[in-house]
């Protein structure tokens, strides 16, 4: 097990290195002089020269890469062009709301979607199943921001149960923190609940056709045992895969949701940085998201053998 994880960790090194190089290249491959883009239209030659020097753009590209990687390994992501603040610090400041949103979404999604999928599979073809599947189609097709505005309109403005937008850190107390997260989490969860409920249902239905399900029934097992003990665990691998992909794709959902609910998280930082062409910040964020993606994949790979002993470490 430990050897397997080590092997997998080692295998991520080339991937991470490639990501780093691509991120480095983005700034250098942008059409035109990056310094000119950064400085704006009416910059003087001296200003441009100064920017080039501070960013190291006057040196040969291979040297720039070496320097960049060297800084990176020390945890130095450079400074923001806009504010001059270290990128790492900016990202750390914005991490809280995004993590809270993502974590809340994962918990809600998994704890709602899997039971829904199980129920739908159990009552396959009946009213309950159809209801779940209809909801699932809706969840897929209605964009997150529409769901978000509907939730705000009914639950915040009409009913007044939740604040319209904003964020309070956990240090301000649990209730203010949670109250402001409920709607964003609900809005973002919709599409993932739909997706994972569907996959859970179809995986279970597929497993229910297997021979060992018949064996379990021949033992005299109740349908509940057949479903929960024999079918669910065998259906776990595809469900796990989709949860992994879902978590990884949360990043884009976070951007939209944070904008709608005005949460000061990484998603908003992405939008701000892109609009301001704050390249070091964009680089830092892409790096972070890539590492996050690779990490999720690693976690999923490590979890597989726990659910299915046939997958060897």
């Amino acid at each position: 097990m430990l050897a397997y994880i080590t092997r997998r960790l080692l295998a991520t090194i080339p991937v991470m290195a490639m990501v780093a190089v691509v991120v480095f290249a983005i700034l250098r491959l942008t059409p035109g002089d990056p310094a000119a883009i950064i400085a704006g239209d009416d910059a003087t030659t001296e200003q441009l020269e100064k920017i080039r020097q501070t960013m190291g753009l006057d040196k040969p590209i291979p040297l720039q890469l070496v320097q960049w990687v060297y800084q990176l390994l020390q945890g130095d992501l450079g400074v923001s062009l806009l504010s001059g603040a270290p990128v790492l610090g900016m990202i750390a400041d914005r991490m809280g709301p995004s993590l809270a949103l993502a974590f809340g979404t994962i918990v809600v999604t998994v704890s709602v979607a899997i039971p829904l999928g199980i129920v739908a599979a159990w009552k396959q073809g009946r009213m309950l199943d159809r209801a779940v599947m209809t909801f699932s189609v809706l969840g897929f097709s209605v964009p997150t921001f529409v769901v978000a505005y509907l939730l705000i309109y009914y639950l915040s403005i009409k009913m007044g149960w939740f604040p319209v937008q904003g964020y309070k850190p956990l240090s301000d107390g649990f209730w203010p923190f949670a109250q402001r997260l409920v709607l964003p989490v609900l809005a973002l969860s919709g599409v993932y609940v739909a997706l994972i409920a569907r996959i859970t249902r179809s995986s279970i239905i597929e497993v229910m056709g297997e021979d060992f399900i018949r064996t379990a029934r021949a033992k005299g097992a109740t349908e509940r045992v057949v479903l929960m003990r024999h079918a669910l665990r065998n259906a776990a691998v595809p469900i796990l895969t989709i949860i992994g992909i879902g978590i990884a794709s949360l990043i884009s959902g976070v951007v939209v949701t944070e904008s709608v609910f005005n949460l000061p998280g990484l998603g908003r930082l992405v939008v701000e940085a892109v609009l301001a062409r704050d390249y070091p910040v964009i680089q830092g964020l892409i790096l972070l998201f890539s590492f996050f993606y690779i990490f999720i994949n690693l976690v999923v790979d490590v979890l597989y053998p726990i659910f299915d002993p046939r997958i060897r470490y």
Partner: protein
Amino acid sequence: MKIDNLAVQVVGDPTGRQVLENISFEISSGETLCVVGESGSGKSVTSLAIMGLLPAGSLKPSRGRILVDGEDILAASPARLRELRATRMAMIFQEPMTALNPVETVGEQIDEVLRIHSKLSKTARRQKVLAMLESVHMPDVERIYNSYPHQLSGGQRQRVVISIALILEPRILIADEPTTALDVTTQKQILLLIRELQKKHNTAVLFITHDFGVVAEIADRIVVMNRGHLVEVGTREDILARPREAYTRMLVSSVPSLIPQKREAPVTDIVLEVQSLSKNYSRKRLFGSGGSVAAAQNVNLTLRKGEIVGIVGESGSGKSTVARCIVRLQDPTSGAVLVKGEDIARVSGPQLRPKRQRVQIVFQDPYRSLNPRMRVGDSIIEGLVNFGTKREAALKKARELLGLVGLSDDSMQRYPHQFSGGQRQRICIARALALDPDILVADEAVSALDVSVQAQVLKLLGEIRDRTGIAVLFITHDLRVAAQICDTILVMQHGSIVEAGPAAEVLTSPRREYTRTLIDAAPGRGWDFQNFGPLISGAA
């Protein structure tokens, strides 16, 4: 147990189509009743009905009673049925590979029966499971208890399934083709095991099979079924020696005999010569190689024009690997494959392509070896068109070939799903013959077919050989089939040929211990099915 006038119908079918009609038979303690019939005869539906396991929503019993110790299964509530399963009636299934939950240890799976039906403590249950595993002759039961199904062999898994079925000593054991997926030697052990446990607990065994060899071996009485109807019930001697019904007679006489027909060994040109062929599979790992497995070692064989050479052996003996190397679906690791003197073992890419014409193959499963979205005619001419024949000429040839394999012209426009298994295998043979190959490789080509269809396809292969002089390499695990069709037989074990010779010699006076074991394990070898009587000793 008694089945009384049972009928099963398709749910929601307005015509009230019956899958089973008027099925009545009895079985008493300690007795083995064999239910035989070809695919689609309703034998499995009968067994599922007894367990109350008919697929809900598609099949339901419409009439009759199934009495187990006087209690009607069909009238029992779902809860009562669950209580009866595994305690009163239990079942073992055909595919030991899929009948066990792959993500639970086998110990837990046997234990589940006890958890459901008893109030024993954890340690008491564990003791009982280990004792059960011992009684099915498992080695090292502690280790087996904690093993997952994929870590066990087919025979061991079937022993686990038997443990699940018999741990509560049910009155009736339903065995649905329990040995069909196993090798003959394993099959023999499992049959002996079932018999042993049956004696010990005086269990009634309802044994469902299509294999008359097994029937001749174990049955006290036999039920013959065909298309949902009961054809005939009688003692083993009644059915095998004095069948009353024409269908039974046809079925029994289709069983190929183990005694090979005496044939003149052909002294024609050699079309295929395989010299010291080896195939190694290497296990790849991230760091370094994990060693290699020899699937075939130093295999030599020759095939003459008009000759049928059989390769027999158990699963994993390397017989299919050899076939695939000869057809070059796999690349041999070393050795030579000479087709009419030309070595095709090393050529590849564009040089190999024209050579492919010379060797064609027919696969085991006719249900999966035809493209379901291609018309049969197109499937047959695909090879011809690839090698430059004009479409019109190719279609003409395809029609001739269909005639040769006994199918009508209009088959050309139809799709594979419109044909039965036997017809599909005929189509596969026609497709293989389309390129006028010198060599036809038949890899378990009749193993998936019912005996009566099997007999027809074997006859067809013989006729084609006589007419076209094609050389056939016939891969099979079934010694009866090999005896029926092969001139020469090679016996493979662990990737090597252990014995080779004329069919009659190999099967009647084997020189090697392993060949003898194989022949001894062939079920029903003491019975001459075609002549409806026991085999006269001395003839063998």
